[in-house]
């Protein structure tokens, strides 16, 4: 079980930053097959002493020259040479919406860590994004630990699991204490799961006894 936990905390590298910005989103050159990443996936970018957390918003196929994308280019080549050519001239770019950042400091084992820790006595926590990672910063799919760092872990009191991440099935939680302090709305197109999410949230509130639940309006659509 511990081994499983450790395994799920190891991040899988998927590519590196090649450009972008806070407003235009970040661009990541994928060096794994495009199908191993999906829209909406959580990614972590390691850059120096900082970790950046973001969401995949788009995947784009690209080529060094439009002619390399033409199938006819490969007809005259042997299958092996064609593969070698594809690897170097065709690629997939990922568009990542950066959302949060966290100062993790130098490596635990490094000599610089003690000095950094003395200057930063509080445990680091995720902050709204205010800067960007450097060129070629390695990008990873978020591990279970990363998702728990941002959304909380289902083991913590008051945290309720509302779903799982798409690729790796890491639990995504909501802090019910905070949730009931403010008004919330659930928006989305038809068929995207608004009623389903509402039902889960209401079930969580009732189970944890955090708030009184009063259902009004089109209540017939929410089957509790």
């Amino acid at each position, binding site marked *: 079980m511990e081994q499983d936990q450790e395994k799920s905390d190891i991040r899988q590298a998927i590519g590196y930053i090649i450009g972008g910005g806070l407003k235009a989103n970040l661009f990541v050159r994928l060096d794994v097959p495009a199908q191993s990443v999906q829209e909406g996936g959580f990614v972590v970018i390691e850059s120096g002493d900082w970790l950046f957390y973001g969401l995949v918003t788009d995947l784009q196929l690209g080529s*060094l*020259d439009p*002619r*390399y994308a033409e199938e006819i*280019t490969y007809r*005259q*080549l*042997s299958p*092996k*040479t064609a593969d*070698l*050519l594809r690897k*170097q*001239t065709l690629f997939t770019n990922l568009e990542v919406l950066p959302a949060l950042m966290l100062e993790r400091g130098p490596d635990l084992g490094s000599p610089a860590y003690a000095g950094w820790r003395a200057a930063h006595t509080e445990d680091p926590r995720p902050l709204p994004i205010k800067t960007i990672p450097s060129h070629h910063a390695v990008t990873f799919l978020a591990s279970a630990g990363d998702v728990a760092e941002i959304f909380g872990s289902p083991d913590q009191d008051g945290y309720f699991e509302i779903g799982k991440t798409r690729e790796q099935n890491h639990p995504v939680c909501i802090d019910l204490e905070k949730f009931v302090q403010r008004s919330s709305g659930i928006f989305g197109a038809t068929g995207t799961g608004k009623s389903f999410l509402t039902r889960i949230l209401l079930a969580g509130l009732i189970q944890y006894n955090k708030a009184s639940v009063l259902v009004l309006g089109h209540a017939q659509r929410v089957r509790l």
Partner: protein
Amino acid sequence: MSVVFVGYEQNGKIFHLFPPRPPLTLDSIQPCSDADLARFTGTGQFGYLRLLLADPMLPAAELLAVHVRAALAVHSGGDSEWHDRAVTVLIAMLKDDYPQLMAVLGALSEVN
């Protein structure tokens, strides 16, 4: 006959660069032995390909095809790993020159 320099050996080390000085008049020229060819092309580096591609007057695609065929023959009976690495380096060097790269890869396909 004209000769293009693709490297030299000094103190037992092979360099894929122009030699520090040209050979003198009346110096003799000998073809490389199989062992020489295997040593020169087996360093793991392919910098000499850059020197072959640098001269626009040379028929680079044909020269490379002949060279790759000769080198494959001395690399333990057609080492496909050597071939793949050479092709990878050529693609990296020529990827911004589509017509030249396709000419080179087309000529190399004839070798196989």
